């Protein structure tokens, strides 16, 4: 490997940095890895390491999601399908507005970039509980005053708010790489400005768009706090279902479902990474 590592390999610096990096990764991954291991436990208690290994919880998870009980009151199926639908709505909506926005921001020569980034970072730093209550009270007020029932959108709207910062960052960094000259080249070949965007800019933003889509989906699919305030008995997501199964009594089935979700998310992340090839910033 090139110098950076051969140099880092030298002396105390390499050791200390390597150890800290390892520690960081360990802290990030440890609890999740333990959950992964526990999902293969053969017992019902939380002994770690598990006394015996089995796939029984995966069987139970399959039952709950797709088996006989999937239609009944114990079912996670409807929660999963609304999670998927809300996730899809969130990803499509947030990406389809962030692409034109990042185009506008980058083409306005960076003057608005700071403002846009700041505005769109606020949702990350806003206390989620307060946001949840505010959205809930507003939605109910809307319903009271106008009778409008937002349906799935009562979840999708807050999810979009939370996904926008991440999606915008991805789109901006993708848009940065698309020179005006490419657009001008398309125009010099006879493309109208709009066609130039559709034929050249959008395809070239693809890595950022894909990363944005997937991040939006992951964020929506795993969002809990605001959803907890906003969900209704008819529109619930998988994290809410898992919450009801774990908040006061641990059902190991949820560990198996968690593992499946992690596998899905990790596969998506690896796919994004393949698309952006380590160059784009995921945030």
């Amino acid at each position: 490997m090139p110098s950076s590592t051969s140099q880092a390999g030298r002396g105390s610096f390499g050791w200390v940095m390597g150890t800290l990096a390892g520690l960081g990764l360990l802290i990030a991954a440890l609890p999740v890895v333990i959950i992964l291991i526990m999902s293969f436990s053969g017992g019902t208690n939380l002994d770690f390491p598990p006394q015996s290994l089995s796939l029984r919880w995966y069987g139970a998870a399959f039952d709950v999601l797709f088996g006989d009980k999937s239609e009944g009151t114990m079912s996670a199926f409807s929660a999963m399908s609304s999670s998927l639908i809300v996730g899809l709505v969130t990803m499509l909506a947030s990406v389809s507005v962030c692409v034109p926005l990042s185009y506008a921001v980058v083409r306005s020569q960076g003057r608005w970039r700071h403002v846009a980034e700041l505005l769109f970072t606020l949702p990350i730093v806003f206390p989620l509980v307060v946001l949840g209550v505010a959205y809930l009270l507003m939605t109910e007020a809307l319903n009271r005053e106008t009778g409008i029932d937002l349906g799935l959108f009562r979840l999708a709207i807050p999810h979009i708010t939370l996904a926008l910062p991440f999606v915008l960052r991805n789109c901006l960094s993708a848009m940065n790489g698309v020179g005006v000259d490419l657009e001008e080249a398309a125009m010099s070949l006879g493309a109208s400005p709009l066609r130039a965007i559709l034929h050249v800019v959008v395809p070239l933003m693809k890595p950022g768009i894909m990363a944005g889509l997937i991040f939006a989906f992951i964020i929506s699919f795993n969002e809990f706090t605001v959803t907890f305030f906003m969900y209704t008995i008819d529109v619930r997501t998988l994290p809410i279902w898992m919450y009801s199964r774990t908040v006061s009594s641990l059902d190991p089935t949820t560990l198996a479902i968690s593992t499946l979700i992690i596998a899905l998310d990790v596969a998506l992340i690896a796919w994004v990474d393949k698309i952006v090839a380590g160059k784009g910033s995921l945030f």
Partner: protein
Amino acid sequence: QNRRFAGKTIRILTWSDDTGLAVLRNIAQTFEAQTGAKVIADRTGSTSEMVAKLKAGGNRPQYDVITLAGVGAVTLASAGLLEKPDLNQLPNLQSVDQRFRTGADGHGIGYLLWTGGMLYNTRTFKAAPTSYEEMWNPKYAKRVFLPPATWTDSLDTIVAAAKLTGGSATNVEGGFKKLAELKDRVLTFGENPTQIAELFRSNSLDIGAVYAPAFFAKELKDPNSGLGATYNLKEGFFADLMYTIVPKAHPGESSVIHAFLNHTLDPVVQGKMAEDVLNGPVNLKAVLSPEAQKSPFIIKPEQLGSTAVIHDKAVIAAVRDSWIKRYTQTFS
């Protein structure tokens, strides 16, 4: 009679704990099987969360039936959010103990008895402790737990501490002082019963109260869990009547709702719930196996006797907010 509600839907809100799960198993599923109605259930957290949701939702129809603690029913009733069920449509109510038929000014239908006692570590205690005073024993410093402030059990705990200092539910000053002594000795607040069971199993806890043994139906049968529970306490144990209520704005049909309420009081259902998650049945005719009859953890109405403390819900509802705040502040 059979499948008379085919195609109808009823939406219920219940607890997230094992009791909630048992509601699905023993009440919702049997109701579906008997009437053909479809039950959609939401199981989220505690009574106060349910109240918050209903209050924020205002008159938006979302749930048909809610099961929750008495205090919550009183709060919601006084906010004018509840509908009075028609008692004539609830034949099973006739076999319910007179004291526990309705509450919250007729808005709540008695449903089960929730009882709180003391939990202890069977490895530490050769015999079950007999007073809440045990928790103050310095031996158990950092091995004690208490219920979380947001639960009604914390109100019971305050009263228990008050009783130790000669006070009562209407004179709790001493109780708060007494509780303050535990400030640095508490390991955790038992927000999550599974975690509490885990801590007992791993021998990290010795004692805790006031807490419902009902959370630990499985563990109490398992000698390896290290978990024991007792109601035999000098200062008494705490009993609370849980209600089913019907929000004013409900999406479902009244007849289905009443059938469901009636079903919750069915002797078989009540018996199953008692055996399954140690709920105290309110139906005097509840069908219990001989073994369950003997169980010290299933408190039947007739067993309430003189040691059971049953709060005046209206009083508790009035002081609840300030007690929760003081309890929280005492321990942080």
